[in-house]
């Protein structure tokens, strides 16, 4: 469960996002909204990447502001357009992430095999296509044992086969490890690919739960 308490994000004087109180229950959650509605900002706030007013609590226990290290152990994040130092290889990045997130290198390697980028495992990411970097970032988001995985537009720049693989990975991790997902996407998932337990809407600088008729 993710709890938001009096969240406010400003850039200069403009309020980008304001959430007084919101609870997101565990499950696979879709966050939708127009461009610039604050979806990525919200994900970055949850991931602890950008400063903001207020607090976020995960698992009823860990506050981002008060128990940051314990909180961050519960949250993984994959960016929309990931950027990694070009001289690092996927192998080095995986070891780097596994070391920080206490994850298994072998499991992440298997993920890369599923996503068909294992051939490039020992090559520097500077020669990867944008789709391959995207797949790598998704694999890195699965490292360790997070309670929540935040995926920002996981389907863009990925091919159809990879979309199916990613959706299966999400369902599998959710079923086996009870890991929850917060996913933003402009693309529509069909029910067979992925079904969501909850849908959120970013609109008017705030986040609300979508009603069934809107969903």
């Amino acid at each position, binding site marked *: 469960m993710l709890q938001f308490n009096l969240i406010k994000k400003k850039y200069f004087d403009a309020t980008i996002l304001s959430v007084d109180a919101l609870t997101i229950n565990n499950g696979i959650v879709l966050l939708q909204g127009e461009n610039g509605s604050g979806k990525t900002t919200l994900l970055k706030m949850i*991931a*602890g990447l950008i400063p903001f007013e207020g607090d976020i609590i995960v698992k009823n226990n860990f506050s981002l502001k008060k128990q940051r*290290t314990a*909180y961050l152990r519960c949250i993984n994040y994959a960016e929309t357009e990931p950027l990694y*130092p070009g001289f690092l290889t996927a192998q080095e990045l995986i070891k780097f992430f596994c070391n*920080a997130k206490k994850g298994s290198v072998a499991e992440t390697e298997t993920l890369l095999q599923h996503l068909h980028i294992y051939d490039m495992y020992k090559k520097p990411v500077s020669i990867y296509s944008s789709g391959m970097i995207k797949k790598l970032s998704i694999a890195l988001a699965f490292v360790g044992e997070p309670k929540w995985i935040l995926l920002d537009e996981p389907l863009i720049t990925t091919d159809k086969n990879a979309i199916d693989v990613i959706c299966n990975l999400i369902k599998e991790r959710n079923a086996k490890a009870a890991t929850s997902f917060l996913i933003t996407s402009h693309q529509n998932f069909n029910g067979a690919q992925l079904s969501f337990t909850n849908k959120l809407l970013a609109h008017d600088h705030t986040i609300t739960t979508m009603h069934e008729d809107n969903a």
Partner: protein
Amino acid sequence: MKTTLSILQKVLVNHFYKVNAGLFMFLFFVLFGLPYNVGELHKAVANLIAQNQLLLLIVLAVWFLYNLKCIDYITKEIKLPQQQFLTCLQNIGTKKCFGYLCFVQFMIFIPVIAYAVFIIIIALKNNAYIVVGEIAVFILIMLLITPIIYVRTLQNRLREISFHFFTSTVRISKTIITIPLVYIWNSRKQMLLIAKFFSLLLLLLFIRTYEPDHYDIRPLLLCFLLSTISNCAIVFEIKSFENNYLQLIYNFPISLFRRFMQLIIMYALLLLPELLLVWKAYPLFFHLTDYIQLILASVSLLVLLHTTLLTGNINMDAFIKIVFAIAMALFFIILYDPGIILPVVILLIAFGFFHAYYHETEKT
């Protein structure tokens, strides 16, 4: 024509000086900030260069190194996505394009040209016409050959200009500590080599020329901190790299104290050449117990510079002012011989900044 020159000036030349402001400030400080009669000192140096071929060769080698830095900067800059519009220069013909890029090369080579003219004047006074010829030919070659490389880069006929001085075959484990250093080694090699060259040269010159009449750590400490400050441009690059490529480490479950310790270890590694070279000054300039003070003072200074960059979106201009202010303050504080208290206080201030701003600043 004026518009094109103006655009090239703004996009390539001005940016070059902005990016390298730290290096130029350091050079200015070393060349004109010493407590001697600066004019006479430079005349004496120019006289020596005009009379000694080996010294002239060293000077030309330094200028060549600077030119490599210019080539590295311009070729990388031209290839940036936001500078793709410069490829339209190809439409005006190779000769004109060459002319424009000669202007760029001249503008970024001005510091060398100015000093070369000064040495030429001194050499003429000494009737050292061969030296005049050697310098003039060297400068002309640098000014005329280098723009050809730029033109070919613009035409995409040169795949990549990279200088593999020491091909990095050593496998280094990639951690939060080493990744920024590997980046500097891979992508900012010229900056690193030039910073280290001047830093080590300054230290070596001090050790070789200064003769203390009694034991006092302060002169060496002052020189060592000056040497450390020549790494300030690298500190700025490391911070920019973190902002651009390592934002996800903010999502790693690592405590603030451990992150701070990692910063300390990283800058200790960066200063390893200086910390090793200073042993040449042992035991005349420092005692074993004072070595700890040297390590702590230099490392804490770089950590402090790094943490000042956390306080907001500080550009290179503002950073140089901060570096200069800190250097001046330290200069006067060291004169009062604060001992080990100084680096401890610097580290505490740095941790204060780190604690207050690490998670609270927008990374842009």
